[in-house]
């Protein structure tokens, strides 16, 4: 073997050894160690970053649990491969936040077949390939948001009429479909409330800003922007501000995260007119997950549904204290 090939091998080996050993956990102990794996679909979204932070914090309270998060970067194929690899490691509990419904259904079925307890977090899949599914009621959120918008427009014009711009997340996600359908259930009763622009921004603030610029150019008068998450609502606000039209309309989002970058603060600052707290679902997941780990006779419900709260300037300050976790 040539000198160079040898050098290549040595460098590669050193690199791999460093990468692998730097993430190995502490000394082996005699007590039962539990391995909990969490397949997160996209760390880059603030909602999911908050999920990760809370999940890590809650599991850290149990010293006999080794907790690992993988990030699929919004790539279905990557998430499938990551879950397949987790299955090989035989975790005691697998939590999955699926990127999209159809692609992830089969691999989660494989996990269930391999005898691993699976918690499906916040987003649904096409078949019930999980031990339990923890979610919030997105349809109810859609209805609440639409009702808020109807009430606002009625107050503004004396009757329910106006131009609404809708900005949507990833279309393959059930939550997105529900936030849309729930709102339309309500809007359908008011024919003078028109959706003048319907754009898709994949939950990303930067994309929403671009889509909003297009909406602003196409529509000389907009009353409300209903974005299906806070980052997109903020992106829309930034676009409107750049064109000097931010006072022409109000912005409504969903998520209501605490902390200085979350939606609640934006309501306090007057950027968003309202947001809806979208539960992280993490508290419930860790609570149910712990029971699954420690109690072999525990049979969780198939579905746990969590509820949402509306945040407006009236209750924002109070909610901010409640939903901001100390780091």
């Amino acid at each position, binding site marked *: *073997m*040539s000198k*160079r*090939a040898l*050098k*290549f*091998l040595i*460098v*590669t*080996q050193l*690199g*791999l*050894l460093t*990468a*692998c050993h*730097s*993430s*190995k956990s502490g000394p082996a102990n005699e007590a039962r160690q539990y391995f909990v794996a969490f397949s997160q679909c996209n760390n880059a979204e603030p909602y999911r970053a908050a999920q990760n932070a809370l999940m890590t914090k809650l599991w850290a309270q149990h010293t006999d649990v080794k907790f*690992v998060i*993988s*990030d*699929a*970067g919004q790539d*279905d*194929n*990557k998430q*499938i*491969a*990551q879950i*397949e*690899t987790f299955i*090989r*490691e*035989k975790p005691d509990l697998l939590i999955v936040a699926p990127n*999209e*419904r*159809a*692609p992830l*259904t*089969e691999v989660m079925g494989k996990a269930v077949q391999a005898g691993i307890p699976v918690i499906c977090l916040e987003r649904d899949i*096409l*078949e019930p390939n999980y031990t339990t599914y923890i979610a919030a009621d997105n349809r109810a959120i859609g209805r609440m948001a639409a009702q808020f918008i109807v009430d606002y427009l009625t107050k503004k014009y004396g009757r329910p009429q106006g131009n609404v711009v809708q900005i949507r997340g990833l*279309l*393959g996600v059930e939550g997105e479909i529900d936030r849309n359908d729930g709102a339309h259930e309500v809007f359908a009763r008011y024919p003078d409330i028109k959706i003048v622009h319907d754009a*898709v921004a994949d939950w990303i603030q930067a994309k929403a800003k671009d889509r909003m610029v297009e909406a602003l150019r196409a529509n000389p008068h907009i009353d409300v922007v209903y974005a299906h998450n806070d980052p997109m609502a903020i992106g829309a606000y930034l676009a409107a501000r750049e064109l000097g039209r931010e006072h022409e309309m109000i912005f409504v989002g969903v998520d209501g995260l605490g902390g200085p970058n979350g939606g609640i603060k934006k309501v306090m600052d007057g950027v968003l007119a309202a947001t809806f707290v979208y539960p992280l679902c993490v508290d419930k997941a860790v609570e149910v997950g712990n029971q699954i780990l420690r109690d072999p006779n525990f049979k969780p419900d198939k579905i746990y549904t969590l509820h949402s709260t509306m945040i407006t300037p009236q209750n924002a300050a109070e909610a901010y204290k409640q939903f901001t976790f100390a780091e």
Partner: protein
Amino acid sequence: MKFFNARMNASQHNTEPPPLATTGPNPAPSSCPKGTAAAARPIWRRLQALPALAGIILVAILLSPHASDGSNIFLETGNLTDILRQVSVIGIIAVAMTFVILTAGIDLSVGSILALSTTVVAMALTRWSPPVGDAGHIALAIGAALAAGAAVGALNGVVVSGANIQPFVVTLATMIGVRGLAKRLTDNANIDIGFGRDVAAVFADFINQKAVIIGSLLVMAAVFWLILDRTVFGRYVRAVGDNERAARYTGLPIARVKIWVYTLSGLLSALAGVIYAAENHQGNPNAGIAYELDAIAAVVIGGTSLMGGKGSVSGTLVGTLILGILTNILRLNNVDSNVEMMVKAVIILVAVAVMAGRKAE
């Protein structure tokens, strides 16, 4: 230039270039340099990346975590076949990319063609009802997707060989345009190839089996290896990349070679797209972003030179495996996926440096 002398000796009075994809007789390699007469080059010369693959496998076995019964997780059959399945989509694209890079070209549009293919096959399966049985419907849907990919590839080839524009620029334009086309076809939505009993489900269930997916990769690799090593067309591909001007003076059908090479790249990207659609149960116009980079990485690690003329399909397979095993062992050890990318980057650079060093020897 010795290669062309050898060819002239073999067919002295034949001024017309031989037809493309036939298996021509190998010229007597009396004075052929190492890189060209396949029969003369021993196998360990051609598989330059093989020691690296062996090294990575060794390290993977050493670093693999162990299951509760003590067995080595990396070596589990299930895990090894997982790796093969996970690299198949990129692997198929990389096999055809080898040909493109051998002509000193590049194809950046493979990811977009994959996306177009997934949408075409999903649309054909869910929104079209031809008067044929399930098998016929599936065949037509796959055929449509492959035809779309080949058409884009042919377009790439025609523009590269006809207009005087570099392949990088041409395929960059196609990459953007075809992505737009795929998104327009479905209005940027995904098309679910659902579960159930309809023809789309039959398609997904059949194709989404490890044997079919891995088999496709191996069959494509075998076919393309045969073409490259055992046909006149394969020789032409190397010749065009090695020294295009000399090839032109010798009268090789350069335009036809290039058109074929890019068409094949489009065709295989479409095949990868069909598999992707079945694996993910979805036609997705946003699929395959940055796949061209993974494919090029696999080709380069396998020893193919971006300057053209030098490389092999077997090398590409080895390169694909190296990347797949690397990713697997990092994931089995729960290394952060961002660190994963950084490690990949180092491996690519080191591999290319080693190959460059080899060439100078």
